[in-house]
């Protein structure tokens, strides 16, 4: 493992998703915090910056796009990985253009896909997608 662990915030209104991501990424050597709403996520990032935010797009209250925008506004260096169960071209594009989402992971995904996605966004390789 690297000397300084990367910090990752997972935001999803589905508790199991948060738990699953946390379990897998911690197993992968990352420091993982969780939030089950957009507001909570923004608060956490405000208190302490993270390297990567895994952000569910469709959530009650503040949705993924707004959350992403708020986070990017505060911490532009934060990488955002969108995670969603049913993306459409239109909404996906809006995220990429306005929300500052860097890469996208389709639900449901497994351990391998998650780790690959995070590694990809941290290595800055995602622009090629």
């Amino acid at each position: 493992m690297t000397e300084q662990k990367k910090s990752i915030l997972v935001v999803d209104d589905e508790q199991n998703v948060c738990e699953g991501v946390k379990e897998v990424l911690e197993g992968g050597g990352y420091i993982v915090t969780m939030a089950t709403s957009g507001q909570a996520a923004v608060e956490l990032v405000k208190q302490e910056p993270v390297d990567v935010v895994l952000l569910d797009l469709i959530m009650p209250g503040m949705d993924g796009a707004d959350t992403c925008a708020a986070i990017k506004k505060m911490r532009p260096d934060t990488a955002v990985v969108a995670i969603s169960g049913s993306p459409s071209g239109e909404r996906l594009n809006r995220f990429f253009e306005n929300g500052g989402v860097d890469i996208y992971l389709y639900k449901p995904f497994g351990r391998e896909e998650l780790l690959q996605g995070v590694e990809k966004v941290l290595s800055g390789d995602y622009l090629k997608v």
Partner: protein
Amino acid sequence: MAMKRKKRAKRSGATSGRTKKDRVSKKSKRAAELRAFKKQAGVRLKKDLKKLQGATPKENRDAVQALRMYQAELEMQNEELRSIQEELEASRDRYADLYECAPVGYLTLSRKGMIEAANLTLCRQLGYDRSALLKKPLSRFVHREDQDIYFRHFRQMLKSRKGRTCELRLRTKGGALVWAFLECVVERDRKGSVSRARVSVSDITEHKRDEVALSEREAEQQMLLKSMANAFVIFDSVFDDEGRFTSYRFVYINDAYERITGVKNDDVCGKTVHEVWPETEPEWIKRYGEVAVTGRTQHFELYHDPTKKLYDCTVYRPYPTPERFCVVFEDITERVEAERALQESEETYRTIFDAASDAIVVHDAESGAILDANAQACELYGYSVDELKHMSVGDVSSGEPGYTEQDAKRLIGRTADGAPQTFEWHSKDHSGRCFWSEVALKSALIRGRDCILAIVRDITERKAAEERLRRYSEELQEMVEARTRELDTTRAELFQAAKLASLGRMGAGIAHQLNSPLCGAMLLIDALLEREIAASEREHLQRVRKGLTAMRDIIEAMLSLAMVHRRGGMAWEEIDLRTVIANILGVTEADRDARRIALHLHFPDAFPAMTAFPGEIDQAFMNLINNAIDAMPEGGTLTIEGAAEEGHLIIRVADTGRGIAPEHREYLFDPFFTTRVTEGGLGLGLALTHQIVTKYKGEISVESELGRGTIFTVRLPLSETDEPMEAIPQGGEER
């Protein structure tokens, strides 16, 4: 005295002719004379004999002597008389001949007009016997119409007591009429009044006939001259002292001349032309003078101002001398005017004819011969008018079947019968170029002749345009048909797509609901599997994890129907269908085994890879194979064959199951069409397969027989997939 008596007797005898009867009466007369003479002599003798009674012998002798001498003298006298008589008879016969056989008829009329004597010639002239004429009035033999002439003539003769002549017609015994010239001389008695008339009768019938004929001919000639249609004039030349022809004088003008000039024969005859028309042009004097002097006939047209007319004149000199000449006139003012008008009309016609923008050819209605053509026609055909006039309609036709001279004449004939024709004609010009023309035929009466007007228009360009239009129209129609076919296909596809899209939207909703819990479960299990756990637990977890993956695939399939490919579809990959099939067979192995389904797999060693989005092709064949297995619940044989031909990959999936009812085949590829509702069939499998195969521009077909099995054949193009396809297809939308 005796001679005198005899002469008289002869004269009276002459009147009675020399018939036998006449001779008999003459003899008896003479015998009577002789008896008288003898009686006288006897008386004298008795006297003398009385003297002798008592005479001396001497005296007797002397007396006898004297008697003898007397006797001799008498005998001599008798002889002389006899010779005189003979002479007289000869003379009488001569005169009788002259009288009887004279070349003219003679007759003697009594004071009362009775015929007393007539010669033989007259008898012959009238055809009667002399006896039929004698003692008859001459008037009986005069023609009824000439009775007046005769009686007037006869009366005047009696009155004047002089000879007269007259002409009248006598009627012959046969009824014929004879023109006779009667010349009478009168015989007067002692008192001087007419006792009888001697008349000679000459037959002048021939002469009369000639005379009548002559006068008739003269009258006829006069009439002809007078009434002839042309004006006719006889002029006398007028010369001056030096012998120059200076004027002319009217001698005779006929009716036509009077009519034309308005002068009257009685007014102008004897006058010179200058007296009648002082303004007569010198040219007239000059022309007439030439004819009068030279005698050479002249013919000319000359205007005469006094009568304001134009004349056609023939001047000639009938006699060898210059004194007189004749002129035949014809008033040609109107004719020349008419000719001029005709010419003007002709020029006007020509101008209009040539100004027409269409070519016009005039044909004879009967023969079809070309009579005239306008300037446009000459330009169109490349001939002059004169050339066209010597050509037939066939010479300006292409002569191809339907466009021959006979065809043209038939059309002209129909038009002449009263049915105007309009048609397209294949014409030919001077250079031999054939071209299309539109011809309108109409009948017309030109200069009193039945003609057909052919109005010809070159429609080469129009024809070409029509042809272009026709081709364009055909192309367009083909395009429309092709496009219609495409549209039909597209519409069918759209209909299908619409159904799938609604399914996709529903699927997307379900996916959203399921994907997050599924994701949490998968991550948690994956996390668990990373830990140190018992082998049995690991096996269970792995089985659950597999089930979760299957669930994910189902959701994915539903999204696929909505053409929402999210996963693994971001890049093209080379796919070996053999591997794809093998993977599917591996997944379905348990099911096949459970149903005791035998497998036959036939693929060639060299089987090209195709380019596709991973997952889609898997999905297509997974559905076919699952269907085949489901069709054989009681077992059977699954046969999968692959072939590569002509740029296509062909995969055949065959089962020996229950087969598909014919009425179901139509709906086979429709979403949610299933015959296995009770077995949990969603009816999405074949719809999805069809969707995917179609997307790759492939084809899928089915053969099936109830109770025998079904064969699905998928035909996928290799080349089509070389072109990149949409990485992210449009379709359903998240809701």
